[in-house]
């Protein structure tokens, strides 16, 4: 099997792909990016925590105008995964307001973003409707 690399470092590719946040050990604030310190309590110690793969759409937009190379229209959303907010695209759903709704239940899904010159496959993530 060809080597894989996650599109972002907080996507874990194992039997059950999931996202992992950096959680502040003092106050519990969660972040997805590389940290210098905690924006909430200024603590400097973080521990990785897995994020639930199921959630609910709290906000979305259907983007029709985007940077060159981005296929449009696509659905950008904020998904509440058990109290942790995650930014992602909604995938495997027609990008129109009849099919995408606020409060919709969704589940993390991964997809191939293509292979590079070394044959390594990049794997991205999005959320798809649970039903």
């Amino acid at each position: 099997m060809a080597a894989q690399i996650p599109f972002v470092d907080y996507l874990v590719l194992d039997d059950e792909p999931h996202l992992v946040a950096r959680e502040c050990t003092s106050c519990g604030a969660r972040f997805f990016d590389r940290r210098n310190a905690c924006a909430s309590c200024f603590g400097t110690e973080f521990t990785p925590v897995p994020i639930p793969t199921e959630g609910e759409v709290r906000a979305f937009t259907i983007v029709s105008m985007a940077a060159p190379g981005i296929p449009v229209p696509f659905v950008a959303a904020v998904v509440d995964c058990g109290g942790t907010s995650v930014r992602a695209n909604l995938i495997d759903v027609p990008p129109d307001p009849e099919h995408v709704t606020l409060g919709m239940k969704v589940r993390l899904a991964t997809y191939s973003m293509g292979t590079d010159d070394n044959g390594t496959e990049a794997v991205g993530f999005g959320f798809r409707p649970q039903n």
Partner: protein
Amino acid sequence: MAVDDIWILGIHMTKFGKHPDKDVVDLAAEAAMGALRDGGVTMADVEVLAAGNLLGGGGVGQQLQKQIGQTGIPVYNVANACATGATALRTAIMSVKAGESQVGLAVGVEKLAGAGLLGGGGKAKSDGHTWEPRGRYGAVGPVDGRIGTETMPGTFAQVGMEYGHKYGGASFELFARISEKNHAHSTLNPLAAYTKKMSLDEIMNDVMIAYPNTRPMCSANCDGAAAAVVVSGEKLATLSAEQRARAVKVSASVLTTDPWQEACQVLPDVNTLTRAAADQAYEQSGVGPEDLDLVELHDCFATAELVHYDNLMLCPEGGAVDFFESGAPWRDGAKPVNVSGGLQSKGHPISATGIANIWEVCHHLRGEAGDRQIEGAKVGLAHVIGLGSACGVHILEKAAA
């Protein structure tokens, strides 16, 4: 007037729109010289200059001095996203408040006509193609468009949708009607970039940018500048009766950033810092939202205007939809909002916006707004937000005498 009060002595904005024959310095000079003339002072009186500009390459303050007067005064070049103009004004105000100067000049200027979509993109892929993690997310490619959107229309669309999800009642049509109001208001503003009334149908059927924001529901990229002269109460007392009568009191000048909240680094939280700024401004001025005769708020997108009715406490918490439905924010309503036409039609030359909205309020408080005058206006509020984020709120009051 108390000696430590702050007053706007002179203020000016250029026409917003396309100015192909003028560069950034021309526009800044027009605004600055207009504000000085309006206040009856010259560069010889000015003791501090704060200049705001984002896309001009830096150092616009000194470039401006070289055109309108080099007097050796300190210059602060400031940049704070869409709150840059308010930040320039606030910088001049802080200098006067601190007693380091008695007369300050603030300028905001931008050349943005034809700039297109702001906020999206990222680095293009290089030719040799290997996935290589970069940046704070260890991403092997640009995240915009692949992990949600970083474009401004999409970001603010989600801000409005989130509000609708929380409180209900918001729909594509409701957001479009907010835009219909601002485009209707713009017909009375000769300095607006676009002054065409648009029907609800026209707005909803225009090009979709990021649902639910169609093109006319987005702020218009354009060129423009605005400038203001601020003075201390002590200085104002030495000026003529006419200057004193036209001076507008700055009852509150506040700048905030967003305190950390869950999700604020996922979708920018434009609510908490706006509410905090409004709270502080009402506290500083002793003015409440019920006292405001007009409000110019940062309607960078129709979806943003809705949430700021609530953030500025023009309505009870969760009541923004009802507030709009009541007709209150129309110019003949109980609480006129964006009678200038707002960013959607007046235009949004980023760094000019935070002074231009103050110009609009001053114009009404001075009774000089012509056809679009809000009769008897005594108190107004101007609000801007720059994503990232920074929020400026100023409360202005008509001179007592």
